[in-house]
């Protein structure tokens, strides 16, 4: 049954506000001064359902002031403020039901239940964060090594390129030197020249082989594996544009992986193609460029996102397969036929100032009819796994992707801290 508020108020003034820090200002039976100091009113006008203070401070327990707020103690859960317009509006806002003291709404006190659930989810979250943070440390470590490797490789590549050029130049000089007295010295020098040439050639070859091994051994485990070799399309024996596993195994002499010594036998088979690809200037430049580009990416403060580079993650929905290739592109492909749509190319980190690395923005995707080019916002949350968890299109041609990765896990506070920081029992 609904009791008219004004009738109720005539007989039963409301309890004083429940905000611990401010309670001191509401001293019973003493004139009340609005918290902004704008005026002073008799105490019976506090919570009398009429707004006297400009700042709303005289009505902390009623909906009378347009700018007031109400404090829910929410014992067992988290205390909170709600706009005072939600007092007695028939909708349960505070889990302790205190906002609906006179609306006829039947509210259940759900604070304990909510507290329990929150603690559970905080606990789960804390565990995830903890494990995620450990994984992140690994990622950072690996990224650092990878970065160094790459930097090294780049330097090396640039160096070796230079070295090669120098060697070619040296050879040319030797050749020219050799050619000058060629006619008369040919006979005489021929043998020595051949020996010399062979020596240089072998030396060169050895260096190149060692370089090649390092280059091919992506994970630097001392073995060149099928998988590592497969990415080197230039070695494709039948030049059909793809390097199958069988083809690669063939290159490796039937083995799954080879160490440096075995590599010698492999080397002769791939040498020509490999070297060709290296000496060929544009390709070399492109490898250098790619390395430079990769090194140049902003992979986060500790390069913790580096591991995502050149990876792709998929999510299958009822209609589409969504594909996120971090730092590259996002795409959508209908499950049942139809061509792939580009939902955006890597743009930049787009999180808020204090959390820049929480959002990725991909833009300049395929254009929409009468609309913008497609774009995708990727929201990153802490998780043990690296997974795309959901996609949506909140606005036409503007996609939203949720993505979990350990790389955004923050250093966890101790669980106790988490729980106590949020609970007032």
């Amino acid at each position: 049954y609904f009791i008219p508020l004004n009738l109720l108020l005539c007989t039963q003034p409301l309890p004083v506000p429940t905000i611990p820090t401010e309670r001191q200002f509401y001293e019973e039976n003493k004139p009340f001064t609005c918290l902004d100091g704008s005026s002073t009113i008799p105490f019976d006008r506090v919570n009398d359902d009429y707004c006297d203070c400009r700042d709303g401070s005289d009505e902390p327990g009623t909906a009378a002031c347009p700018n007031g707020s109400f404090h829910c103690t929410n014992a067992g859960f988290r205390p909170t403020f709600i706009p005072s317009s939600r007092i007695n509006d028939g909708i349960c806002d505070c889990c302790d039901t205190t906002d609906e003291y006179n609306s006829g709404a039947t509210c259940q006190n759900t604070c304990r239940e909510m507290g329990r659930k929150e603690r559970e989810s905080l606990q789960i979250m804390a565990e995830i964060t903890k494990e995620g943070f450990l994984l992140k440390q690994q990622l950072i470590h690996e990224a650092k090594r990878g970065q160094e490797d790459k930097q090294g490789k780049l330097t090396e590549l640039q160096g070796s390129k230079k070295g090669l050029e120098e060697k070619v130049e040296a050879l040319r000089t030797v050749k020219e030197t050799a050619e000058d007295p060629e006619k008369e010295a040919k006979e005489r020098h021929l043998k020595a020249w051949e020996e010399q040439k062979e020596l240089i050639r072998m030396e060169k070859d050895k260096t190149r082989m060692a370089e090649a091994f390092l280059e091919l051994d992506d994970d630097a485990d001392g073995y060149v594996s099928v998988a590592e070799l497969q990415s080197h399309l230039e070695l494709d024996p039948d030049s059909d544009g793809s390097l199958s596993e069988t083809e690669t195994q063939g290159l490796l002499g039937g083995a799954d992986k080879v160490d440096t010594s075995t590599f010698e036998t492999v080397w002769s088979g791939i040498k020509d193609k490999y070297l060709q690809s290296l000496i060929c200037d544009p390709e070399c430049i492109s490898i250098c460029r790619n390395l430079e580009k990769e090194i140049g990416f902003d992979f986060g403060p500790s390069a913790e996102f580096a591991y995502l580079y050149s990876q792709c993650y998929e999510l299958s929905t009822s209609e589409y397969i969504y594909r996120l290739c971090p730092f590259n592109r996002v795409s959508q492909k209908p499950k049942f036929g139809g061509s792939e749509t580009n939902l955006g190319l890597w743009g930049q980190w787009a999180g808020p100032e204090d959390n820049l690395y929480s959002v990725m923005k991909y833009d300049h995707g395929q254009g929409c009819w009468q609309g913008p080019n497609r774009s995708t916002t990727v929201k990153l949350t802490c998780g043990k796994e690296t997974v795309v968890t959901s996609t949506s299109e909140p606005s036409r041609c503007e996609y939203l992707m949720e993505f979990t990765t350990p790389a955004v896990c923050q250093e966890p506070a101790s669980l106790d801290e988490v729980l106590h920081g949020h609970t007032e029992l």
Partner: protein
Amino acid sequence: MGPLLVLWLAGCLSGTWAVDRGNFKTCDQSAFCKRQRALKPGQSPYRALLETLELTNTKLTLQLINDNNKVRLLLELYRLQGNMTRVKINELKPLKPRFEVPDVLINDPPTEPLSLLSRDENGVVLSLGADSQRLIVSAKPFRLDIMEGREVLLSLNSRGLLAFEHLRIRKDTCQEVMSLSLSHSKVDPEGTENKEETEAANEPAEGEEEAKEDEKVEDGMWEETFKSHTDSKPNGPSSISLDFSLPGVENVYGIPEHADSLKLKATDGGDPYRLFNLDVFQYEVFNPMALYGAIPVMLSHSAQRTMGIFWLNAAETWVDISSNTAGKTVFGQMLDYVQGSSETPQTDVRWISESGIIDVFIMLGPTPTDVFSQYASLTGTQAFPPLSALAYHQCRWNYNDQEDVAAVDQGFDDHDIPYDFIWLDIEHTDGKRYFTWDPHKFPQPKDMLQGLLDKRRKMVTIVDPHIKVDSSYKIHNEIRSKGFYVKSKDGGDYEGWCWPGNSGYPDFTNPEMRAWWASMFAYDQYEGSMENMYTWNDMNEPSVFNGPEVTMHKDALHGNWENRDLHNLYGLYVQRATAEGLIERSGGVERPFVLARAFFAGSQRYGAVWTGDNAAEWEHLKISIPMCLSLGLVGVSFCGADVGGFFKSPSTELLVRWYQTGAYQPFFRAHAHLDTPRREPWLFGPENTALIREAVRQRYALLPYWYQLFYHAHHSGQPVMRPLWVEYPQDTATFSMDDQFLLGRDLLVHPVTEEGARGVTAYLPGKGEVWFDVHTFQKHNGAQNLYIPVTISSIPVFQRGGSIISRKARVRRSSSCMEHDPYTLFVALSPKRFAQGELYIDDGHTFNFDKQKQFIHRRFSFANNALSSRNLAPGSQFTTFSWVEKIVILGASKPSKATLKTPDGKESQLEFEFDASMSVLTLRKPGVNAGLDWTVVLQ
């Protein structure tokens, strides 16, 4: 998403942002309009056969003859109660019946007797009763003049443009057409013989009769092709036309729907205003092209008198307007003495319709209020909406899924912005099959609705009248098996292309079909529906993507009638059947809320309309004012425009200004096209969120006043949103004003609709009156142009001195949450220290106010330093928990004390504050229940 449709649209419609005019006919491309417009004035072949005059208690009948072809017409004249005259003209003996519009008039209009004053061979003079009003019928050429005293109020056929294309048998293929038309109608062959006999008897000397009847066949009489669409015309030419002259009139209004100024323009040299319900893609402002709805009602206004012309015809109609100084037309002896005023301005109007009969209601006013009442007595009043429907509506094509709906709902709470309704456009359905839900996006509609209900909010889902042709779709199967679809000219179910692809169109003109449709809204039929779910009928022109002018073929059949005859009526029937469904599902208890895009005269009885697919442009914001004002003048008060603009994306400034304007227009809904970026109010930074929040809150605080205005619109047909001239009929400065408007009598709104505005000039009417700025309480004199500097937060609104407006200052998250909240009364004193106002309260959503008289209607009066509340409806009963929280008296002086007196004899002193700089007196907490009598005396 509908990429196919998008592609289709891209292919078929212009890719630019303007309307593709080539898709729609000009008068020249519409055969009957071209034929009719080619007629020259002053050559009327029509003559009244005075010897056929019959006068009964209820009407006068008289035959007219076309001297060129001898075809006779039957004129019926009625004097209707409430100062109206009805003029009906039909063929005396049509080959087959001609269409007369049903279901628009709320009853057979009650008549009053006409009496014959004088009669001679040139004509007759009849008395229209009061105010020495006379109706003069001149015989040759036929014309009608309505006079009051010495003034001619209005003349019919004064320019001789009456033209009635009689139904005829096609000469070239006589046999076929004969058999065809006979199979379609009940006309017996003897009828034609009789006609010839009669004519022969009356005109024995005419030897050339045959030759004259053999009228020349013009192009487009029996077939017409527009852009690959051929309109077969089995009935041949059937158009009608009549001209009206309005001496002394310079201003005519109404005939919506057009995206044009409030004051209608002369159409000489351009196209006439067109009334033909069409789905116009990306319409342009300021032109007379037809739009989604048609209300064939025109109002004329001068400082002396307001009148109305209601042309009850549902076929394609064109209206020509010309304005000039009245020519020296000869009225005959009776009228000679008016020749002196030959300098008076005059407006001439001409109506042309493709088929049907001439059935005109002339509403003689004389005041705007009278015309509104007169029109309401014919077609009914505005449906009284649930209170929540007057609050804010959040729409978008589309809210994608249940999670999206929940997130938007939460967004409003997070940003403390109230809203009442969230809307779902076509994408919520399972493949555009209305009455269904997309199983992936909306798997649990009831959970979603319950979530909204828990926050005392509501939802609208779209139900369009095109039905997917799909044998696994229950709705389609039932309509098909019951034979309820509109038929094509060949007799099969008419099919056209719309959102679902191939679609059928239920024949809403069929009452059985409407009853069945209504029953589909029952909770056990419309799965997933709940009591807080209401309905939106879009595309009800109807829109047919691959049809001529994107609508239905005119030769499609609704029973025996062609779409040609009743085209403009289809949308009304759709909305009606839906509204009836919503009423029925609640057992007749709850008031429905249905929004429709297409409408006709009488649509006001069924719900709200909006101005269709506008664009996010400043011009479209501006035009929303005259568009809704024009609708309000002809009965449709519940009007709004898509806030923000449907097509394109608004600048933040435009969006804010649109919210500010929309907050003061009757139907307040934000909407956006699928292809536009999201624009929920909080997406534009905290400052703009705050601006939009403030605009929406102003709307909510004013809901008691809106509700009271709608009660009046429902009760007496007075528009909610009014042009200034309606309240200041003699102030010529107001006659063409359409950048500001009144809400009721008491609020004047001049929204800021200019980009980058730093000020607006508002006209405050009323010599000797005062107006109070509702935000600052600053007082301004009436009858002046007031320059108001504005910032981005300004919404210039003024309260008339002499009025009392109730507000609810405690804005909550939905209107339902505010039900029991107290009122603040704003008493704006006139210079004579007087004020009056009203308050209407009921349960906000049922018919109990009507059926059981459960409502409160109070009159507040301030006079002699006392403010009192008195009961205006002693027969009614309702209990409210709301009380009077505060009384703010503007233009007051400081009293020594304020005493509250209640009927039980108790007196108490009220505390008050007085702001001397603004002369504002605030009475603290009277605390009396809003339903009681009370008086506050200031001493």
